C-alpha cells in the first residue's frame, strides 16, 4: 500500500470571473518512508494539490488516498494519520511556543502530563527550548517555520505534508530545516514537500514530480530525471546576445539565454572540439565553454520550456512578520 496516492486529481474553483482550473490532472504515488518532492513555479497548483490530499479542500474529480484511506470519505481518519504545515497557516502570535505545543497536544487528546512531556520533546526537536516562553510574535521567520513544523508533528503523524517549508528563509535557516526534515525521514515519516527551489528538491527528495499549470510534466528520482535528458549539457558563453543568437542557428537542438547557449549531447567532451571549430569558422568568438551533467534546472527547462529559478526569485515572498 502506498503512503499517499493521488489519482487524476482535479480541482476547479468557481469564481465570479469564471472557472479556474487550479489542478487539471495530477497523479503520483508516494512510498512509505520516502521524501516526495512536488516542484513547480508560482501558481502551478502545488498548494491546491496539498489541500486536497490533506482533506481541507474538496476534490472536483479523481481521488486521493492516504494509506488506503480516501481523503473525501474517511477525512477524520485521514487527519489523524497526517501532519500538515501549510504555506500560509498563521501561528497564534500572542501565545508562547510552549503554550502552543501544549494546547496542540491537549487537542490531540494527550493527558495534561503527557502533553507537558510532549511539549518538552517537541521544543527540543525543533530547537526552540530557549525561546519556549517568549511570545511567538518575537520569533524570527526561521523560528516560526520550525515551530510550524513542530506543531504539525505533535501527534506523531505517519505522513507529513510540508507546503513550501523554506520559502523566504535565508540559506542558513533553510539548511537547518533541511536537516530536520532528513532526520524525520530517518524516523520513518513519509514526507510530501512542495518547493519552488530546484536545489531543495535535489537535496531532499527521493523522488520528484514536476508540475506546471496543473499538470504533472515529469516524475522520477533526481538522477532519473537528469539522465532522462541524456548526455551532457554543453554551455557556450559569448560576448553578446547577438553572437549567441547566431550560434543557435549553427548548433542543432540548442537554447539560448542572454549570451549563453546550451545544448544537450551524448558525450559532451568529444563533441566540444567539433562545435568550437564550427563556431570559429563562422567567426563567432567563444568566451568560455563547459560540459556538465544535466541539472534539475535543465530538466525543468526541457519539460516546461522555461527556467524555474528566475521565476521563483522574482516572485519570492518574504515571510510576514506580524
Amino acid at each position, binding site marked *: 500500500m502506498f503512503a499517499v496516492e493521488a489519482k487524476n486529481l482535479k480541482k476547479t474553483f468557481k469564481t465570479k470571473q469564471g472557472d479556474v482550473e487550479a489542478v487539471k490532472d495530477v497523479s503520483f504515488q508516494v512510498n512509505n518512508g520516502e521524501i516526495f518532492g512536488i516542484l513547480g513555479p508560482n501558481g502551478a497548483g502545488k498548494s491546491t494539490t496539498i489541500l486536497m490530499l490533506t482533506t*481541507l479542500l474538496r476534490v472536483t474529480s479523481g481521488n486521493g488516498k492516504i494509506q488506503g484511506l480516501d481523503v473525501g470519505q474517511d477525512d477524520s481518519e485521514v487527519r489523524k494519520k497526517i501532519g500538515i504545515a501549510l504555506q500560509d*497557516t*498563521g501561528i*497564534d502570535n500572542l*501565545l508562547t511556543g510552549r503554550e502552543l505545543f501544549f494546547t496542540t497536544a*491537549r487537542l*490531540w487528546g494527550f493527558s495534561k502530563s503527557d502533553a507537558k512531556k510532549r511539549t518538552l520533546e517537541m521544543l527540543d526537536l525543533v530547537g526552540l527550548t530557549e525561546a519556549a516562553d517568549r511570545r511567538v510574535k518575537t520569533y524570527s521567520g526561521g523560528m516560526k517555520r520550525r515551530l510550524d513544523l513542530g506543531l504539525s508533528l505533535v501527534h506523531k503523524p*505517519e505522513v507529513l505534508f510540508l507546503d513550501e517549508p523554506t520559502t523566504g528563509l535565508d540559506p542558513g535557516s533553510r539548511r537547518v530545516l533541511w536537516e530536520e526534515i532528513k532526520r524525520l525521514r530517518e524516523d520513518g515519516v513519509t514526507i510530501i514537500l512542495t518547493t519552488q527551489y530546484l536545489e531543495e528538491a535535489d537535496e531532499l527528495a527521493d523522488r520528484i514530480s514536476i508540475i506546471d499549470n496543473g499538470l504533472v510534466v515529469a516524475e522520477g528520482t533526481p538522477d532519473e530525471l537528469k539522465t532522462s535528458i541524456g548526455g551532457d549539457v554543453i554551455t557556450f558563453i559569448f560576448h553578446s546576445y547577438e553572437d549567441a543568437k547566431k550560434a543557435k542557428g549553427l548548433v542543432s537542438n540548442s537554447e539560448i539565454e542572454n549570451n549563453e547557449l546550451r545544448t544537450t549531447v551524448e558525450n559532451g567532451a568529444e563533441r566540444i572540439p567539433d562545435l568550437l571549430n564550427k563556431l570559429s569558422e563562422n567567426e563567432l568568438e567563444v568566451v568560455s565553454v563547459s560540459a556538465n551533467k544535466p541539472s534539475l534546472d535543465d530538466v525543468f527547462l526541457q519539460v516546461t520550456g522555461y527556467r524555474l529559478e528566475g521565476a521563483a526569485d522574482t516572485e519570492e515572498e518574504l515571510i510576514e512578520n506580524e
Partner: protein
Amino acid sequence: MNNSNAPFLLQLGILTKRLLLRLSRRPLAELPNIFISAFFLLVYDGALGGVFGGSAAGTPFDFAKGNFLNFILPVSIVSASVSGGASGIYLVEDIESGVFKRYQGMPISKWAIILAPIVVGAVRVLLQATLIMTLGNLIGADPATGIWGYFAVLGMAFFWGMGFAGYSVAAGVRSGSSQGAQAATFLFFPALFLAPTFTPRYALKGWLETAAAYNPTTYVLEGMRAIMIEGWVSDLILKGFLVAGGFAFITLTFAVLSARRATEKS
C-alpha cells in the same frame, strides 16, 4: 501514534482557555468598554439623579422611587453586555490569521471552534457586568430584591451578552472580516437609545415610545429595573429573561447556521 482525540467538552475547554490566554495578553483591549459603561453610570446619575432621585418624591416622575442609580444601573449593565460582541472579532482574527484552518486540519469539532469565542464573550460580559454592579453598589445602588437581585440582573445580562456574541460571530463569519464582526457593536447604539433609557416608557414621545415597544432592549431594561426598584415582580422579570434568552437563542442559531456554511469545504 496517538489515535484518540479530545472529547467535545474538553476541546471546548481547551479552546476557551486559549482565547482567555489571548485575552490576558492584551488586557488594555478590555478597558474602553468598562470605562464607557462606568462613565454612563456616573454621568447619568450625576446629571439626572438630582431631578429624578429623592427630590422627585410625590411627583409623577418618581419612577426611581428615590434612588435614580437603581434606575440607571441597568443601562450601564446593558452597555457592558455589548462586550459580548467581541466574540465575533476573536473568531475572525483566527480566520484571518489562518489558525482556523489549522484547527480544521485537526480532528476537532467545528462546534467547539465556534462556541469557544462565544463562551469567552459571555465570560467577558459577566466580568464587566460584575465590575459595573460593584461600582454601582459602592456609590449607592440598593436593589429592592436585595443581594440576590444582583445575581438575577447578572443572569439577564449574561443572556443578553450571549445574544450579542452570537450576532457578532454570525456577522463575522458571514463577512469574513473583522469589520463585519465590529458591526455588531454598532447595533448597540439604536438598541440602547431607542428604548426607555433615561425615563420609563410612558414618558417617551409617541414615536420613540412606539420604537421602544419593538426594541427588545426595552424589556431587558424593564426587567432589570423591576428587580432593582420594585422587587420580585414576576411578569416584568420573566419578560426580561424571555426576551434576553430569545435574543440569545435566535442569534446563536444564526451563528451556528453561518458557521456551518463557513466550515463547508470549498
